[in-house]
Structure formats: structure tokens, C-alpha cells
């Protein structure tokens, strides 16, 4: 891999993060679906973690969270802390389980939205926002998670399109290559006991 190729992923992720936050703040936040605002940022962070791994996911989450906090004049560090966890866990899922099912991004997107929404609310409570926890609030949280889940697959496809070609090692490609170039699939491999 040449040096220019090595910079490709960070550059693409930087552009993706910048555009995500700007578009989120300037347009997407002002669109409401079933009474809640759409939040693309945790979905994008989780997608990057799933595609690029835990370390790029965590760094991307930190950067996007910090940028969002600065741009929205919120307490610095709150969103970055949550997004680090989302990017890292999505990346670890890819590294440990290497899930190939087409609906994995949907489940990860739902989990990321749930974590971001509930985590943000808990952080605000801990930092002093005085608001009662009501059924209405819980209903809003559930609706937010559902809306996030609906958007998870298209967002994942979009992020994959952006980072495609700059990823150092695509696990699916790697597995496919192993089978087609003479490597045995795990099902065909003789067990140690035989």
C-alpha cells in the first residue's frame, strides 16, 4: 500500500464527518418524523465502526462528537464520549464476530441510536438539567430508536459507498478470496479430533 493510499481513509472519514455534522445541523434536525427529530450522526459513526474497525470507529466518533458539541454550543465532551463508545463497539463487533448478515447494520443502528439517545439524556440529567422522567419522554425515546432503525440500512450503504476502496482489509472480501483461491471453508476443514 502506498503512502497516498494510507491517507485516503482518514481524508474520506474527515470529509464524511464534516458533511454529516453540517447537514445534520442545517437540515436534518429540522425535519421531524412522528414528532421526533432525525439524528444521523450515531448511525454514521456506527457504520464507520462496522466498516473500518474499532480504532477508526472510536477516533471518528470522538471527532464527530466534538465537532457537533462545538458547533451546537453544547457542553464539550458529552457527545464525543458517547460516540467513542458507539464507534468502538461497532468496530469490535466487526473484529470479533465479523457478522455477514445483511440486517446487521439495522441492529447496530438501532443499538447506536438507543445508546446515543438514552446516554445523552442521562448525561444531561447528571449535568443538571431539571426535567421529570415521564412516559411521554420514554415514548419519544422509543420512537427515536425506531426512526433510527429505519434509516440505519440506507445510511450504512451510503457510508460504505464513501469509504469503499480505501479500507485496508474488507473481511468479506478476504473470506471470499480465501475460498476461491484454494483455501478451505470452515465447514470443509477437518476437525482436530479426526
Amino acid at each position, binding site marked *: 500500500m502506498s503512502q497516498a493510499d494510507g491517507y485516503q481513509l482518514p481524508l474520506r472519514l474527515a470529509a464524511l464527518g464534516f458533511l454529516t455534522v*453540517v447537514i445534520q445541523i*442545517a437540515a436534518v*434536525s429540522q425535519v421531524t418524523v412522528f414528532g421526533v427529530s432525525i439524528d444521523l450522526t450515531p448511525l454514521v459513526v456506527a457504520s464507520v465502526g462496522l466498516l473500518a474497525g474499532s480504532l477508526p470507529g472510536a477516533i471518528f466518533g470522538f471527532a464527530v462528537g466534538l465537532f457537533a458539541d462545538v*458547533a*451546537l*454550543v*453544547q457542553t464539550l465532551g458529552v457527545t464525543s464520549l458517547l460516540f467513542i463508545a458507539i464507534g468502538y463497539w461497532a468496530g469490535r463487533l466487526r473484529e470479533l464476530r465479523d457478522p455477514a448478515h445483511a440486517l446487521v447494520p439495522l441492529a447496530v443502528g438501532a443499538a447506536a441510536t438507543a445508546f446515543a439517545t438514552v446516554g445523552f*439524556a442521562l448525561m444531561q*440529567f447528571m449535568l443538571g*438539567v431539571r426535567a421529570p422522567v415521564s412516559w411521554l419522554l420514554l415514548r419519544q425515546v422509543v420512537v427515536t430508536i425506531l426512526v433510527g432503525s429505519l434509516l440505519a440500512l440506507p445510511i450504512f450503504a451510503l457510508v460504505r459507498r464513501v469509504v469503499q476502496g480505501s479500507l485496508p482489509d474488507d473481511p468479506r472480501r478476504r473470506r471470499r478470496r480465501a475460498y476461491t483461491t484454494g483455501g478451505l471453508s470452515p465447514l470443509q476443514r477437518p476437525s482436530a479430533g479426526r
Partner: protein
Amino acid sequence: MYDKQVRRRRAVLALLVVVSLILLTAYFGESAGSPLHSVQRGVVAVLSPVQEGASRALKPVRDLFGWFGDTARAKTERDQLRAQRDRLLEQVVGYKVALQDNAELRREVGLQSSNGLDVYDKRAARVIGRPANNLLLDRLQVDAGSGAGVRVGDPVIADGGLVGHVSFVASDAALVTLITDPSSSVSVKVLNGAGDSGLLKPSVGDPLDLLVQLLPRRARIAQDDIVVTAGFRTSRLDSLYPPDVPVGRVTKADPEELASDQQVHVAPIADLRHLDFVQILVGPSSSGEQRAQVGGTAGVGGP
């Protein structure tokens, strides 16, 4: 090799978490004029033209999504508005007579007729941003800042109704804390003949359902009564908002709820979810610092 990778991964993760915690702690303990806030103000000033451009460019997309929602609501809203129009037509005749009497009586006793808004300069500002997570923080960013004379605490109106107040100012941008933000509370009065006053707070989880609390238990309030700002003024404390700015319309006034919880439900007059422009009332008196304290927005994320 594998151990080295794992150690590197854990070290970077720990570093990111520690940096986030340091930023959080430092920012939370700082005052509005401190270095981190200044950096944030600088970044907001740099970013606001970009946001403004993006906001304008993406307006058709927003409008398209809004169109679906608006169409679904339009029919119900039309029927409600027709019923409301018929009621209002009956009231207008009575009000015109009352207005004439009022003007004559005011002339006789020498009272000023201004409702307080005339002393403000109205600065129009475009909405250029909004936080993604509005369950517990409901704010929006506008493209007018200290360069346009905007100060912390200035009231903000739109569509003829109250929107909120300015809670953060950069050179070319400002942050408006909406009346639906949990940190917001506005002293209001209900135009029900008795002028019962209370405190307007958002209902958490359903921000567009506002509550007027601390009302008299036996207040006679009916659906569609108008709620306006009380705009109190004492020797030590002034309200952020001028008096008689329309805030909302009573949507539910249950006598049992009034007797037990001393509250009624109100819908805001301004369409707070579809604002493209707002008007900032730039006032002649009282310093921004004083009003920032009165505003009580210094909670999370506020300056």
C-alpha cells in the same frame, strides 16, 4: 505483534476517553468568558457562514419532508381553523366596541397605549442550525450575532408569537433557547377576563405541549383562551420578555387538573418546528450579563 496492536488500541481508546472527560469537566466548570467558551465562540463564528449556506441549499429537501407531514395534518387543521374563525368573528365585534371604549378611557386618564414592543428594534435572522437531540435541549442557531447588536437575553419572536430568548452570542451567530427547552420558564397571564397569571413550562417528552403552572385553583380558563407574557418588572428583577407578547392558545383546561395540579395545557402560537426566520427584539436597556442570570439558561451547554 498482536499484543502490540491490542495495547495500541487500548491506549488510543483510553486517551480519547480521558480527553473527553477533561473537556467535559473543564467546560462545565468554566464561566462564559473562559478560554474553551471563547474557542467555541470562534468556531461558531467561522462555521456560521457554512451552516447558512448549507441551510439555504438544503431548504428544498426540508420543505419536501415538511410537505408530507403538513399534508397529513392539513385537513384536521382546516376544520379546526374554520370552527375557530366562526368563534373569532363573533368575538371581533365585541372587541371592536371594547377597543373604542378603551381608547377613550385611556385618553381620559392619560395612560400610554404602547404594549412595550415599540421600544425594541426588530432584527430579522435566519435559522441556520438545530441540535439533533431535542428531547432535553431545544435550541436553534440563527445568523445574527453581536455584530447586529444582539445580546444575551434578547427576546425572540416569530409568526406573531414568542419563540424564546438569546442564550449565547458569537460575532455572526447566536443561539436561541426555545420556550420548549426544559430550562425555560416564562411568566405569563391568561386572557380569560380575570388575567390569571402563572408560569409557562414545557411538558417533557412532548415539547409542543406547554403547561401553564401555578394558576389559581379556581381560575376560570377555557379552551382557546390566549396566553401572553406577563412581563413583570420589580426594583430588583425584570422579566426577560416584554408584556403582552402572544405565547400560545389553551388546548386543554380540565377543571380537575386545574384544582389538583394548578395547570392547563397550551400550544405555542409560533410554529416552533418549522421556523426559517425569527425576529430578535434588541432592547434598549439592561445589560446582557444581568439578563443572562435572569434567564436561567446556564444549565447544560448554555453559557
